[in-house]
């Protein structure tokens, strides 16, 4: 027991020293958040888990509270996802009339993509309400920006609209991919620690993975419909991608 206690103490000491002496080091590592999660789990869970298993060896696996970092990650992830799906829904909604007017054969495709985005938006709206996550304060700004973007690119023509879809879905797909990776890491870590993961996190991982695949499918549709032939292609996609990245950055925070 005393060995355990000293071990714990040294772990805690090293933990605080590490944070205190080298905060910049922690931040510069790209995967810092995952590592921090691991650190939190490994430095705090040893003793309580052991105690719990001593007290009731036949009970099911312990359910530990999520660490502050994990909760902040989920908080940000859900907020930014809702903002993204709001924008996507509006982009397709405003693109559809001009595009369908000039290219009636695209009507089913536009409707299909819009319906999927509306479904994603509904999913995240429910998740936000259920988990008491604050929606982004930039809601009206994104509403306006996304409507303008969708309408503007649709006026520029089919290729520009498809290039817009391509740029947006590339940024969003990559972003979802990062989230899935982090969630899988989180779940793996919990399993390795012998904790109960619970349906909530597994379902969330599944949902985000499914949505990511659907977004990437839209990307394929856009490329099939001559997105690459949009006229200032590099400029258009570059600007939209940069816009998406900054919007993601902002929505995670406010």
């Amino acid at each position: 027991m005393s060995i355990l206690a000293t071990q714990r103490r040294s772990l805690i000491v090293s933990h605080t020293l590490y944070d205190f002496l080298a905060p910049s080091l922690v931040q510069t590592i790209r995967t810092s958040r995952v590592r921090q999660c691991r650190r939190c789990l490994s430095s705090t869970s040893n003793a309580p888990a052991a105690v719990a298993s001593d007290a009731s060896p036949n009970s099911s696996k312990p359910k530990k509270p999520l660490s502050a970092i994990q909760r902040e990650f989920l908080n940000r992830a859900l907020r930014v996802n809702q903002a993204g799906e709001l924008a996507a829904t509006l982009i397709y909604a405003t693109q559809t009339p001009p595009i369908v007017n000039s290219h009636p054969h695209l009507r089913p495709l536009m409707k299909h993509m819009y319906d999927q985005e509306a479904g994603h938006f509904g999913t995240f709206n429910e998740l936000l309400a259920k988990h008491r996550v604050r929606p982004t304060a930039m809601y009206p700004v994104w509403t306006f920006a996304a409507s303008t973007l969708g309408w503007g690119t649709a006026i520029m023509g089919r290729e520009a609209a498809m290039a817009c879809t391509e740029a947006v879905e590339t940024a969003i797909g990559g972003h979802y991919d990062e989230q899935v990776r982090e969630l899988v890491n989180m779940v793996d870590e919990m399993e390795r620690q012998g904790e109960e993961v619970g349906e909530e996190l597994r379902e969330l991982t599944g949902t985000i993975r499914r949505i990511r695949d659907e977004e990437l499918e839209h990307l394929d549709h856009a490329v099939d419909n001559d997105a690459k032939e949009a006229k200032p292609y590099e400029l258009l996609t570059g600007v939209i991608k940069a816009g998406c990245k900054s919007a993601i950055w902002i929505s995670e925070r406010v």
Partner: protein
Amino acid sequence: MATKTRPLRLYSKRFYHSYDHPAPGGPFPAIETSILRVSTPHIPTHGFTNTSLSLGAQDAGYLPASTNLFPRGAFSLVHYYLYTQRLALAAHTNITAADAVGENGYVMGVGGKVRALVWERLMANKAVVHRWQEALALMAQPSNIPTSLKELAALSDEIWFLAGDKSVDSSWYTKRASLSTIYAATELFMTTDKSADFIDTREFLDRRLGDVKVVGGAVGSVSQWVGFTAHAGINVLRSKGVRI
């Protein structure tokens, strides 16, 4: 100076609310909680003061001087009171249930539930209302204002959540802001209310909620009209062959 040396864990930031992995306890550590819990019954007689705290410390089996566990002094008692009363709202399952029936015999909507929950929260102050101005004075001290405002925001968030409100757009902010102002105003009104069963407070609350409903309804109607007109205009132009 004391506040610099040993701050309480003031406020756990509200994050993702997990059902599988519920978040650990509140902003107060165990010993502080045990003292604060037994200090609360002293509030009606001794108010939100250090006297209540030291009496509580004695009741909990500590020295009266243990109040130096609370660098913010009597405000810790106010904060604990606000925190526990906020969490106690969840116990009103007769209001928060999906098919809860209101006073008029109909199933309550979100608005009705908000009104009922605000009233329950105000009635929880009944026993200490003659001392409440002390608490308000402590809450209004510059160093305590951030915590007080966060507690107020957390209360209106809790009320909207318990009432079953699911809006996650800009109205999330306006709803919480308007409920916070209404609650703060009504609470202040209640401290001077001498009427039987706080009937005046009840009417005051209903008038404030009514005001918000009128203003919110007007804003909603105007924006609906603007949206409809803009859509109709665009569609007229499209029907004329304009490529927009």
